């Protein structure tokens, strides 16, 4: 266990830091919260306008070995914010089953696959209120990817090899569509699963905007 966390005292860490830049909290990715009495906004994430390399890496695994640390090149964040990030992203804590997590809301779990990665992830679409929040959460989950804000398109990229991914989803009718075309609520209702497809393979899907019509219908 990291020496950083060994003497971790929640109160002192939170109070002492300037959280302007990175308002990370204990909430699940994308969950919006009420403002507390002290005016601290809980649960907010940075906006897309700040295109930051979020490469967070596997933040809850610590290597004591220096060589091992170097190999975790993805960890570009500094120490203090890193421990907050870990806190904010504690997987499986508190130990509450998915069906209980948001007792108020119904859950809508869908599977997310990334071309080239052998593992799937599950996300609960009900936890997000916008495409930005969803993509941001996907970026957190598949930590090798960063979000590139390019010409109003939301694409994901793996900086290690420059491969670009496009978010696509399968709807209720079995058709594969580009994520972002329909209003968010409609997307949540109709989405069955999400696939981050390599851009090179995404030709032929329903065009995003009239200007970007692909050659095949």
């Amino acid at each position: 266990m990291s020496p950083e966390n060994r003497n971790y005292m929640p109160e002192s860490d939170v109070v002492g830091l300037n959280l302007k830049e990175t308002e990370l909290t204990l909430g699940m990715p994308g969950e919006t919260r009420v403002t507390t009495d002290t005016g601290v906004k809980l649960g907010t994430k940075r906006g897309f306008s700040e295109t930051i390399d979020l490469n967070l890496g596997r933040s809850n695994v610590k290597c004591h070995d220096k060589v091992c640390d170097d190999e975790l090149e993805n960890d570009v964040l500094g120490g203090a914010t890193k421990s907050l990030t870990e806190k904010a992203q504690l997987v499986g804590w508190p130990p509450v089953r998915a069906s209980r997590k948001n007792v108020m809301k119904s859950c809508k779990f869908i599977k997310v696959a990334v071309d080239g990665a052998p593992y799937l992830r599950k996300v609960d679409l009900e936890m997000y209120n916008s495409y930005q929040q969803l993509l941001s959460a996907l970026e957190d989950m598949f930590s090798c990817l960063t979000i590139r804000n390019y010409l109003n398109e939301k694409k994901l990229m793996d900086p290690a090899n420059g491969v670009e991914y496009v978010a696509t989803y399968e709807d209720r009718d079995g058709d594969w569509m580009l994520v972002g075309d329909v209003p968010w609520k409609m997307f949540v209702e109709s989405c069955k699963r999400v696939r981050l497809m390599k851009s090179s393979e995404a030709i032929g899907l329903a065009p995003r905007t009239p200007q970007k019509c692909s050659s095949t219908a």
Partner: protein
Amino acid sequence: MKMMMGSSFPEEVLEHVFSFIERDKDRNAISTVCQSWYEIERWSRRRVFVGNCYAVSPAILIKRFPDVRCLELKGKPHFADFNLVPEGWGAYVAPWIAAASSAYPWLEEIRLKRMVIPDDSLELISKSFKNFKVLVLSSCEGFSTEGLAAIAANCRNLRELDLRESEVEDLNQSSGHWLSHFPDNYTSLVSLNIACLNSEVSFTALERLVGRCPNLRTLRLNRAVPLDRLAILLHRAPQLVELGTGEASDLRPDVLSNLLGAFSRCKELKSLSGFWDVAPGYLTGVYPICPRLTSLNLSYAATIQSSDLIKLVSQCQNLQKLWVLDYIEDLGLEALAASCKDLRELRVFPSEPFGVEPNVLLTEQGLVSVSEGCPKLHSVLYFCRQMSNDALRTIARNRPNMTRFRLCIIEPRTPDYLTLESLDMGFGAIVEHCNDLRRLSLSGLLTDRVFEYIGTYGKKLEMLSVAFAGDSDLGLHHILSGCENLRKLEIRDCPFGDKALLANAAKLETMRSLWMSSCSVSFGACKLLGQKMPMLNVEVIDERGPPDSRPESCPVEKLYIYRTVSGPRLDMPGFVWTKDEDSALGLS
């Protein structure tokens, strides 16, 4: 071995005697007496429980027990409930069903927990076992309503279909809703639990089904069945003993009075659950049956607050089991302690598990009150945000009969809020006074000392869950060397490493399984352990790629060790690494 005793009784007599012996432990003991008793016992064993589906293979099971009627299997480790086990890890039941379909034509009951079961397997079950009666799928996944339709259509003798907390994919079927696949002459349903289904339910099919099954005792509906329909169902099934309601957000007086009428006819009703999005006004409909209730699950009732909860529980004098949200607050738990003297089990779940500030007035005091007022309380699951050693000591002294104690202080490493010390002494008191404690979950600020107490006093402990606790390998060593009856140990985010694990390698063969995630165990140690202990499967679950691309001292992400008689499994996904993995050779 000389057969002395066995040959003086005809086999039939011994078989008859053995038929009165049901517990696995006892049957296992009988089978070791002599060869002939082993043979008679194995041919007459009807009920088998496999706590870890990878500990034994279908072939080995069938070879030893050729005529099993009831099979229970468990798959993924417990922490899979909290998303700690990646998708695709395993626990596939298909090979078991395939093997059973030819070996056990008389199979009657299948109970699965945390396993992956595809529709094909459900169809195979429905067509292979003529006398199939009970299907319980607890926290399972991989199937859809198609599979359920096959069960409904083909299992003529089905008594129980229980999908508790499973994930079911809803497929729009052209052949009609799956419930309508129960044939018109099917009348043997006793128990139906579809509470986990997210989709709509065909009410007409449901009503007809309920109406023609006179032995129906248990009916747990899903959210989608509104309360106004519930009254209709209750009129058809006044003999119900256990009921789970759907949702009802609008309070309508006509619905309420129908409900009151329906409930008053249900003289046998003892257990209630459901209550999603229920307008609190509907609770008055429940008051008439409260005095008969022994079990109440309000853990999904997010719209019912403290004052209504107090009114409700105060009328449930015979309550034995209560699952509730922390909306009940300390005041409600005091009322519970005053009214429900027969209470055996209490679970209090967090309404806002990710909130930073407490949103309810629930503290350690609520649990203390219940421990004082309810002499039969022996099973507790409690989520809260503050705790003190004093409170834990009081609880321990009040309830030495505690058998299951699971405390989750939501913020990791929270100290005693009064003294700011660790909670070592408090949990120490629990293990010291509660001599029958079988299950324990720890939380809060804890040092190695608490593990010393657990190792010293936790002699009957079978399952231990540890998170964000301890200082060094000594903690793990205390557990492994002290807890003689330990079967399952699950640990996350603790500074436990190679030393304690390797020093207690032999202990691991006496346990069902050990889970360690975000600890300090190196891949080198895992390889060594796997090599030293051929009866263990040592699985490193690491999604960062081949472990030998990192230094051997680098800690693994997750580790799952379990004893097995069937060797390494053949269905491991790419992110599971064992001692045999060698990425340089291109094996995976």
